[in-house]
């Protein structure tokens, strides 16, 4: 849903610059009055908890303990450094994020190019794209469990009918679980990525396209020279966001495998959730969150900040 934020770019539609000259640059008192209702909850319930959460990472906070919570310095982080289970989950999270984002991007790109053509039935594709997008992640997970079901699932039945063996319990197999959940991740996020890329495609100057065609450029060359340069900013932004969202995802895999089998699909969020709300290790789980946000910040720093700056300098 928030892929909107990547592509909508409302800034582009603003009124001509001259209109702003007559207005004060900073918000005056009246403006502050308008800002406060949103600012207060943001500060109290969003920025505050985030800072509090970072602070908790340096304490031994636990649920239901009687002793006062104490400051432990970087102890949690030192423990985390030696926690192979956490690094396993970190690695799985990275594989999952890349494994979902890359195929999803390639499929969505192909599809967006396809839907940009004047094809019959493309309305059907656009209409159907709502389904994965609007579904609660929990329902997506449940639905795919029905598909993957070893006995009554449609996947194994199809394989049996095609003579491709007896099928298997995809979500419980040590080797198949991660690929199986990755397929679901790709399915669930593809429409959003497609719509974002489709919006980006409208940026491509069609005249240039036609000119290139008249000059005898083939489809691939036209894509490389005309389409891709125009699409690149949108493509990079949506890819960065997808990597971040996927790395931080929770509900889908929680429903599909709950991290199993044997931790093979235990994403960092699942690990941190268990640590915090099953074992009550708030401080330790907060430290995990810090490591995750640090990893993700690198991505943001690399892609989004430059892009936003470009937007604001306009």
């Amino acid at each position: 849903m928030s892929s909107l934020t990547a592509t909508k770019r409302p800034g582009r539609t603003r009124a001509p610059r001259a209109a702003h000259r007559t207005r004060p640059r900073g918000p005056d008192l009246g403006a502050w009055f308008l800002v406060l209702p949103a600012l207060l909850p943001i500060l109290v319930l969003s920025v505050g908890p985030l800072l509090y959460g970072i602070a908790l990472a340096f304490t031994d906070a636990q649920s239901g303990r009687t002793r006062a919570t104490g400051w432990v310095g970087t102890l949690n982080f030192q423990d985390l450094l030696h926690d192979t289970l956490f690094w396993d989950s970190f690695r799985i999270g990275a594989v999952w994020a890349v494994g979902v984002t890359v195929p999803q991007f390639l499929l969505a790109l192909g599809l967006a190019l396809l839907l940009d053509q004047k094809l019959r039935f493309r309305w059907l594709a656009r209409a159907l794209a709502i389904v994965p997008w609007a579904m609660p992640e929990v329902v997506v997970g449940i639905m795919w469990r029905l598909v993957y079901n070893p006995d009554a699932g449609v996947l194994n039945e199809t394989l049996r009918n095609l003579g491709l063996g007896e099928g298997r319990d995809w979500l419980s197999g040590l080797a198949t679980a991660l690929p199986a959940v990755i397929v679901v991740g790709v399915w669930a996020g593809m429409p959003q990525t497609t719509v974002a890329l489709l919006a980006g495609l409208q940026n491509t100057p069609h005249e240039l396209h036609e000119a290139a065609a008249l000059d005898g450029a083939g489809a691939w060359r036209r894509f490389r020279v005309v389409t891709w340069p125009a699409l690149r900013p949108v493509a990079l932004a949506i890819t960065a966001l997808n990597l971040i969202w996927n790395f931080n995802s929770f509900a889908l895999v929680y429903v599909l495998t709950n991290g199993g089998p044997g931790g093979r699909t235990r994403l960092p969020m699942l690990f941190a959730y268990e640590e915090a709300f099953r074992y009550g290790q708030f401080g330790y789980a907060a430290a995990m969150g810090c490591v995750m946000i640090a990893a993700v910040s690198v991505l943001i720093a690399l892609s989004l900040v430059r892009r936003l700056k470009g937007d604001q300098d306009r």
Partner: protein
Amino acid sequence: MSALRTSRPARCGQYLALLAYLVFLALPFLWLVSTAFKPAPELASLHPTWIPKDPTLDNFRQAFDEQPLLRAAGNSLVAAVAAAVIAVAVATPLAYVTARHRGRLASAATGWVVISQAFPFVLVIIPLFLILKNLHLVNSVSGLVLVYVVWSLPFALWMLTGYVRAVPAELEEAAAVDGAGRLRTLVSVTAPLLVPGIVATALFAFVTAWNEFFFALVLLKTPEKQTLPVVLTHFLGAEGVADLGPLAAAAFLATLPSLVVFGLLQRRITGGMLAGAVKS
């Protein structure tokens, strides 16, 4: 596009690709629907069929018997409506200021929108859990609403800022020249033009809250308070053993409201995105 003629084999390839995509997109959902209407013997069959031979509503009845679905849907509805209304009410004035004044505040708001996309929510939920616990708001829908409001503020702000910018500032200036005060300009000139955008944003916030799982899972402990997505996971049971029919039926029902709202909204979403891109 007129200069670009596509050869017949290429066209065929395109239609094949479209077909493959439609199948990939549609089949899981059709399977869910099919499972929801299958009677128990057909569900137990080792050779499941696409179309139930003997469709039944038993699964739906059983689903309502097994879990408090109605109450859960009620909780979801209350949380989602309250969150959407409050989020939009709170975000609209901020979006107005962000759109009209280009200063430090606008940059800060934009920066916050971006950063909030990167939150690993566990880092936010632990302190929120502790704070709400102290306020005795854990295991209450009002606590959840608070969280949802803040959680949906970033994109509400982003969408609304776009809608405000689409209202020409000249209109407001003209009203000011005509002697209307700032408040009057806002109420009688700007606000009416913003209504469609506000409605779209609210619906979007509604769907997000209706579908949300993680916060609800952490904050709501007793079945009477839980929202629909959390209650749905109770059908899964221990060790993944599930009663497939009622599970599918309940999951199908839980999707319908989002599908309806998204269906209404789709033109606006894609339309808005496309317009935004075209105008740049």
